[in-house]
Structures are given as C-alpha cells and as structure tokens.
C-alpha cells in the first residue's frame, strides 16, 4: 500500500471511529451511572423496555463522548500535513531550479493552490467532526427523552 493510501486509511479509521459502535467498557460505565451503580445494573432486566431504553441511552452517551473527543482532536488543526509536505517539494524545486520570473510565477501559483487545499481539507474535517457531534447529541437527546418516559 502506498504511503498516501496508508494515510487515507488511517484518516478513515479516525473518521469512522468517531461514529463506530462504542466499546463495551464505555457503555457499561455509562449504564452503571444511569442505573445507579454496578448493583443497579445487576438488578435491572435489560430485556424489558426500561432496561432497553437505559441501554440505548448508555450507548448514545458513549457515542457522544467519542464524537466530542474526536471533535476536540480536530478543532486545533490549522493545516493539512500532507499539503504542507507537497509545498515543501515545490519549495525544493524552486531552490534547485534557480531564479526566473516564469518559474517564480508558476511556483507561486502552485503554492497558493496547495495552501488553499490545505485550508479546505482542514475545514472539511472540522465541518465533518461538527456534524458527527451534532448527530451524536441529537441521538442522545432522543434516547434520554425515551428513557425518561419510564421513570
């Protein structure tokens, strides 16, 4: 697999990780809090409607935590490392090829394009992370309201 492919796969994993089914431990931690401790979990029948609603809420809480952590990991990003790396290549070519108005114009054009791409890539990531967070929040709100009906 090419380095670019490996990077894409890593990014996909991060993206999907923010939306994937949360781990059992996280869900159990939330379920325990919802039902009032580990004892409450043991005493509750998770197959009856209130138990299922509590379980659904716990899953949504864990998803919300994940989405929020992902959102915060994306928020400080300003530039895309891959685009910056390509800009360094253009810079290298500029230094190796020497001065010349034509070359400088071409380099400027490409550098500006890459700079725009770098900003656009990060902006897209931020928008996506924001969307994941909003979806997780809405889902959690619905699950909470459903659970409250049984209290």
């Amino acid at each position, binding site marked *: 697999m090419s380095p670019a492919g490996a990077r894409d796969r890593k990014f996909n994993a991060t993206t999907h990780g923010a939306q994937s089914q949360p781990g*059992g*431990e*996280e869900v*159990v*931690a*939330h*379920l*325990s*809090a*919802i039902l*009032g401790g*580990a004892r409450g*979990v*043991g005493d509750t029948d*998770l197959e009856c409607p209130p138990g299922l609603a509590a*379980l659904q809420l716990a899953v949504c*809480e864990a998803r919300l*935590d994940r989405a*929020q*952590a992902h959102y*915060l990991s994306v*928020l*400080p990003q300003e*530039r895309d490392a891959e685009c*910056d790396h390509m*800009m*360094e290549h*253009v*810079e*290298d070519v*500029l*230094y*190796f*090829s*020497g*001065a010349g108005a034509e070359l*400088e114009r071409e*380099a*400027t054009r490409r*550098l*500006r394009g*890459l*700079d725009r791409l770098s*900003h*656009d890539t*990060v*902006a897209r990531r*931020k*928008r996506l992370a*924001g969307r994941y967070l*909003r979806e997780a*929040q809405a889902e959690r*709100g619905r699950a*909470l*309201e459903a659970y*409250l009906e049984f*209290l």
Partner: protein
Amino acid sequence: MALSEIRRPTGALSDPSRFLLDDECAEDYGRLRDLYVADLAPANALERRQVELILRCDLDIERQYRMIQQKLTHEAHIKSRPRQIIDDFRAYTEMDGDGDGDDVSDGAGYGGAGPAGQGASPPAPEPKLNTPDIARAYTINRAMIDIHQRELNHTHRRRRHEIELLFKMQDRRRRPTVHDAEIIEVG
C-alpha cells in the same frame, strides 16, 4: 447484552482530559464542575451528567470565541505560507550575488526557510493592531471563522436544549412531592 457479560466499570466516565484542549486545565474544569453542581443541584447520576454537558457547552462557547479572536488578532500579521516561501526564496537569490540562484551546492536554501533564519535578530514585538489589519485577517481566515461561528451558534442552541432537559428531569423528580390542588367551593 447478557448480565453476565457486564463487568465492573473502569471509571472511564469522567476523564476530563478527553474533553479539553492541550491549553485547557483539567483542574479548572473540575473546579467549574463543582460550581455548576452547587448551582444546579443535580440529585442523581443522570442529572449530574446533564450538568456536565451544560458545562461542556459553556466551555465550547468560550473555546469558539477564543479561536475566532485568535484568527482575527494574533494571525493578522502572519504572512501566508506561499508568500513566506517566495519572500525567503527572493532573499536567498539576492544574497546569492549573481541572482541566478543556481549555486545550491552548500545546501543553504534546500528544503527549508533558506538563509532567512541564519543570524536572525530576536523577534520584534507584535505591532499594534488596527482596523485594516483585523479586516485583512478576517478576509484571509473567513472560511475558518465561519465554521467557528456556526459551531458557536449551534452550541448556544445545544446549551439551551441541555438546560431544558435538566429542568424537565428535575420537574419530573419533584412531581411526587407536589400536592394536588384542592378545589375550594366558593360561597
């Protein structure tokens, strides 16, 4: 999920560092959480979680304002990266003497900032900002500022919703303690 599969929770619930940026302090978060708990008086884990989500909304609102401010002020004097590279290259070719720029055997300009960083004087203090600087910074960073602005509006809405949910839970909890109204016969 079978009950036998449920293990004891590992306390992964409230690790605040997961929800903070590097420049935000977990201790401050803990202190704020205590204040919110004292103020909103949650009675159970569900309400405590709701208080924590309200706190996260407030922190996010502050965070978005901070990021917008950063874009408008601190980055007003920073050159764009393409501009920086071209300026460094011009400085390099001018220092090169003949201006043809083909003498790269010493590697001075290779792959980096060129000679600009060599023997550089200490950084000058940031000049005072004026309106054109801020307007310029806004033009350059408009796309990013729009994203933060949108997130800010969304977080304000979310905060109102979380508060509404908390009050709903508290009302529901208090309902059994409220006596039914008595009908008093008049006359």
